[in-house]
């Protein structure tokens, strides 16, 4: 079971302070960092994958050849705006997070 915080008995620390669970940062939701979020206009989307490729978090998901768009995972999106800036059809708009 993954611990989210680092508070534990010294006896619970894994040997060598190693982390045995690969990719366990998926339990740390960086989505609360952002002050703006990407909103996709699906009419304009040409399913070119640039948003998926250029997202530093890798938090876009391929919705498949039927749906033909990429969906952002708001659990991790930091609101950097690269996807909106790189989209060749200006299909993504960065919109301020609600206060």
């Amino acid at each position: 079971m993954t611990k989210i915080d680092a508070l534990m008995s010294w006896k619970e620390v894994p040997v060598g302070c190693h982390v045995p669970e690969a990719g366990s940062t998926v339990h740390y939701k960086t989505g609360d960092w952002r002050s703006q979020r990407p909103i996709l206009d699906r009419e304009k989307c040409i399913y070119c994958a640039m948003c998926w490729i250029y997202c530093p978090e890798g938090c876009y998901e391929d919705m498949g050849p039927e749906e033909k768009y990429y969906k952002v995972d708001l659990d991790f999106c930091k609101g950097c705006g690269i996807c909106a800036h790189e989209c060749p059809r200006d299909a993504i708009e960065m919109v301020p997070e609600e206060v």
Partner: protein
Amino acid sequence: MTGRTGIEVSLALSEAVKMANADVIAAYPITPQTHIVEHLSELVADGELDAEFVPVESEHSAMSACLGSSAAGARTFTATSSQGLALMHEILYIAPAMRLPIVLAVANRALSAPISIWNDHSDIMGERDTGWIQLFAENGQEVFDLTLQAFRIAEDPRVMLPVAVNLDGFTLSHVIEPVIFPEQKLVDQFLPVYRPQIRLDPAKPLSMGMFGIPEIYTETKRASEMALMDSKAVIVKVWDEFEALFGRKYSPIETYKTEDADTILVSMGSVSETAMTAIDEMRADGKKVGLVRIRMWRPFPDEEFKAAVAGARVIGVTDRSITPGSHAGPVFMEIRSLLYALPERPAVFGFSLGLGGRDVTRDNYKYIYDQCQVLEDTGQDRYEMVGVME
């Protein structure tokens, strides 16, 4: 080779690494370690040892490569001295914290400045607090045996800590001594193939070398400390196994004529043999003196040491290094601190000698004995640097 052979001690060490079937040797040459790594290179080149010999470009890279190799799951060895050990310093702390079972031979040599290629213990004393298991050899047989034992101890799943085997540079590394070489099949029985559960393996990806925020750092240090303390019990068990297979007994400390001694001297390393000869001569003179030789420096064997000196009135500790700015050499500090809590404690005095390759003689030990008697009455707080030209 098997049986009793006269051999340069450095080469005996290399032969032990060969018999242990090490996988990776990453080393950088420095006097007086050179014969160890040169002989290992020959053994690899001649196909007598199937290992990767990595001629790294510095000792810092040597220890770094050893960490990588050990993390990958390979049986790993390196050797160094003095400046080379000092250059490894940063990485030396990391190996035990990451629980990587590397074996390091240190041909003890004085630290600069001034630059010296000769023997004392200042190099390893600078690494006292790194968390390594640290053992001291007294003679050629011990060097061979401790090296084999080091792999066994380090790789034991209950230990998983790196081990430093110390041998005095030149005075032990470069002398020819009789060494009994066991049969390979006995060595294989004692030291099985290394198959770590935790290693870098794409089939079971894990991360090593984490960023330790304040919430966890204290706990990791406690865990490391306990790992080192708990290793003593395993080391003693390994020594029992060794005795059963090879017939030679090893203990954390060795005592020599201490049973009725009122004065006990303490030594570490090859000077112990000189000390024992001096003790014999003093005993012939009617002096009730004995010697405790420390083999296991880290973790320090508290109980064994206290038991060994139980009857003594005064203890003279010899150090082969100094700790400037304090009032004690490192071994002296350790022992005085250990014995301070005793309800009835002996007087403890410290003597630093044999620095930078200066000879340690029987007369030195006789002087130290006499000084202990004098000081017991007059008291002395600081260590004495024996034999310094005033």
